[in-house]
């Protein structure tokens, strides 16, 4: 109950902060509807059903292309990490008990929990952790997240329940790699299931829920792990995750009581459900940013004046109001709440400045914008066309599906293209990948030797203050080069029926359903 109260206030306050008087009535209504009373005792039993937009893509770190949608949530219930991270940044023991760095910071020794078994009866020990990490680090396996694990050289077993991570150099984000929720890096699978090649379809872990069924496009069913190592957990008997791709259908499923929770970012549903007395609202503010990538390697956008002119002509707040009814935040860097850099010098909306830059460029500009073939993508196309018309830049909006967008981006055959900077527990990882001139992830073709130098500096730095300042300087330098337009900060909403209790909102990614219970 308390968690719901806090989060109602958070969402209302955020809406109010972003929109001022526009959402004042919403704010007032939400505050008046706040539930009150002491937290109730947990109730055991029952089934929780949650709707996601996307189905799982698999559960094996190597084979699954991503831990997306319902799959990410299911993986978090079935497979566990070595540690979680508290809001203060401290490690919370899960399968690991303690992580100790060496004096030179180049090795980390992790003590593992004993007497834990995987759901298939395989014992959890150093062998399981080493096998998992060796798979990820082996270049032949082409693990997609390996680019973010660069400084980790190897992982070895030193005792039956002790492993040692060997690093190239001291690396501050190391512990966030162990606690990260992105992908499958941090989640330890059963070595037996991996060896049998069943992990991708029928995942096995040590978590509070045991995988029962994955009917693609319909449901993922998990049941309570009766021999879970944390006594007294979990509360629910069963969790059913349902991918419902259509937003209206997902909304209807929640309102008609077929699912107890759902994820959405649709303004029409967010504004309706935020004031609905039967539902609690939880806002997931993620780091990262949704952007329009500008190709710095191809004329005319290889000229920084044109990119900056377009950035000056773009009005982020107007776009957010038109397309999202102000339910998502503005952003001028990609660090979210991880790092407050203050003013990061992103070109402000200034048509005079934009026209002056275009005049200095001196040639007519016609560009193609590749967007998702969705109503929201088309909307972005029309808005971009209208805004750039003001500076005589002609935009041809071209819809494309996800594979098409990926191909154009990675082969750098585009002018402007929809893209995103995903969120990580430590945004320095994605900053390195996205903006280093040699990184395959640098889809913008952005190249600045000074930024490369700063990226190396922050990676090697062991002083958090220096690192933070360096990351902010990188943001300023990247913004000065304007390799993209910011669309909005990444924010999602979860709505849950009031009977669903003990929901806590983490700083990143997924709602931890393992702690949830349902009131009788």
């Amino acid at each position, binding site marked *: 109950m308390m968690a719901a109260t806090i989060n109602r206030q958070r969402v209302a306050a955020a809406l109010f902060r972003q929109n001022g008087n526009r959402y004042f009535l919403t704010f007032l209504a939400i505050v008046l509807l706040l539930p009150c009373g002491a937290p109730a005792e947990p109730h055991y039993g029952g089934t929780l059903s949650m709707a996601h937009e996307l*189905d799982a*893509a*698999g559960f094996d770190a190597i*084979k*699954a*292309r*991503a831990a997306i949608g319902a799959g990410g949530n299911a993986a978090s219930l079935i497979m566990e990490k070595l540690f979680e991270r508290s809001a203060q940044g401290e490690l919370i023991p899960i399968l690991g008990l303690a992580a100790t760095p060496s004096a030179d910071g180049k090795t980390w020794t992790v003590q593992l929990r004993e007497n834990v078994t995987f759901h298939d009866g395989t014992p959890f020990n150093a062998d399981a952790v080493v096998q998992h990490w060796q798979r990820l680090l082996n270049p032949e396996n*082409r693990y*997609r*997240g*390996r*680019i*973010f694990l660069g400084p980790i050289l190897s992982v070895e077993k030193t005792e039956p329940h002790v492993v040692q991570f060997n690093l190239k150099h001291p690396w501050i984000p190391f512990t966030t790699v162990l606690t990260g929720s992105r992908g499958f890096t941090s989640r330890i699978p059963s070595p037996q299931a991996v060896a049998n090649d069943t992990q*991708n*379809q029928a995942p096995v872990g040590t978590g509070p829920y045991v995988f029962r069924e994955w*009917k*693609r*496009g*319909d*449901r993922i069913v998990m049941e309570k792990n009766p021999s879970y190592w944390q006594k007294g957990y979990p509360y629910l008997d069963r969790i059913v995750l*349902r*991918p*419902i*791709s*259509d937003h*209206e*259908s*997902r909304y*209807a*499923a929640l*309102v*008609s*009581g*077929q699912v107890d929770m759902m994820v959405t970012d649709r303004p029409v549903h967010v504004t309706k459900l935020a004031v609905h007395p039967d539902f609690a609202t939880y806002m997931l503010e993620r780091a990262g940013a949704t952007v329009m990538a500008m190709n710095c390697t191809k004329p005319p956008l290889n000229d920084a004046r044109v990119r900056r002119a377009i950035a000056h002509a773009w009005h982020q707040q107007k776009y957010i109001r038109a397309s999202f009814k102000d339910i998502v935040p503005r952003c001028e860097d990609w660090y979210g709440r991880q790092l407050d850099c203050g003013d990061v010098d992103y070109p402000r909306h200034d048509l005079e400045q934009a026209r002056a830059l275009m005049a200095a460029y001196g040639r007519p500009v016609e560009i193609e914008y590749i967007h998702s073939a969705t109503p929201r993508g088309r909307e972005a196309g029309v808005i971009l066309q209208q805004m750039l018309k003001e500076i005589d830049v002609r935009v041809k909006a071209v819809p*494309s*599906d*996800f*594979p*098409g*967008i*990926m*191909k154009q981006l*990675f*082969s750098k055959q585009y002018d402007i293209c929809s893209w995103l900077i*995903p969120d990580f527990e430590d945004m320095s990882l994605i900053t390195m*990948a996205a903006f280093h001139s040699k990184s*395959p*992830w640098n889809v913008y073709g952005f190249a600045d030797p000074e930024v490369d130098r700063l990226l190396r500096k922050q990676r090697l730095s062991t002083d958090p203050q220096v690192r933070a300042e360096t990351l902010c300087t990188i943001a300023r330098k990247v913004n000065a080069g304007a390799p993209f337009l910011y669309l909005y900060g990444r924010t999602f909403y979860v709505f849950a029926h009031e009977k669903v209790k003990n929901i806590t909102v983490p700083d990143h990614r997924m709602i931890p359903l393992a702690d949830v219970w349902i009131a009788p």
Partner: protein
Amino acid sequence: MALVARKISRLLVIVLAVSAITFMMLNALPGDVAYVVGGEEASEADIQAIRHALGLDRPVAERYLRWLYRIAMGDLGHSYVNYAPVSEAILNRLPVTIELIVLAQIMALLLALPAGVICAHTNRSLWDRGITATAFASLSIPSFVMAFLLIFCFALKLGWLPATGFAPLSEGLGRNLKSILLPAFSIALIEWVPLMRVLRADMIQTLKEDFILMARAKGMPTWRILLRDALKPSSLTLITILGLQIGHWIGAAVVVETIFALPGVGSLLVTGIFSRDYLLVQGCVLIITVAYVVINALVDMLYTGLDPRIRREGLNV
């Protein structure tokens, strides 16, 4: 026997042609499954390695022939995206789509048969005009709009039926029917109209035949004339339309399965198209094509049962 063999060979040609055209069209689409498989973190080298591993760097014709060979061996291949066997994915979902289409057909016939008979019997009356106007109004609503209207009325407002999801038969017949009623009804509400119209038109002609006049002269009751004597000879076009409409029904199922989050072949096809999972799409298209041509072949055979003239003349339908 020769007729059956000729029919089967014709059907095979159709299936081959459709599969070849689909294969070529899928390959002509922009985008590349390797980018989906590789994910956001894949480098260009990773993408090339994935393309090579999946055989996507080989010529289209060679890939098509390999696919055909595997089909001949009874193997639809594995999904490029999640590595699951395509045949397993389709077989798991086929019962849902079959149930949806069969139930939708039954509902459409339950609406079309009485409406068609009443319209024919009361030709140009207020009844006829009223039913025809309702039918055209129903036909003018796209299936996805109809689906949302039904969800709004029966799930959100009345709370009688679930808005989304599918309950398999293993969870009980009642739950299963409740979960599939709205999707089937949203297809039937559109598809009953052509059935009703052809039945009405044919029956109006039949009711002018001499044998109907004879029956009336004998004093047979109207209901008996309509249902026993006139309905059977009037339903030949109706049966043809039912067969030909299978493609349309499957198209409607694709939309309806997505809206109602039903785990059928239609939604599988949509997923496959968006992720450029060629083998999955090819497998779905193959199954749909086979279903289409087999059902139409069965309809051809049904003619002989319905109309003795066809049987006698051995008409090459």
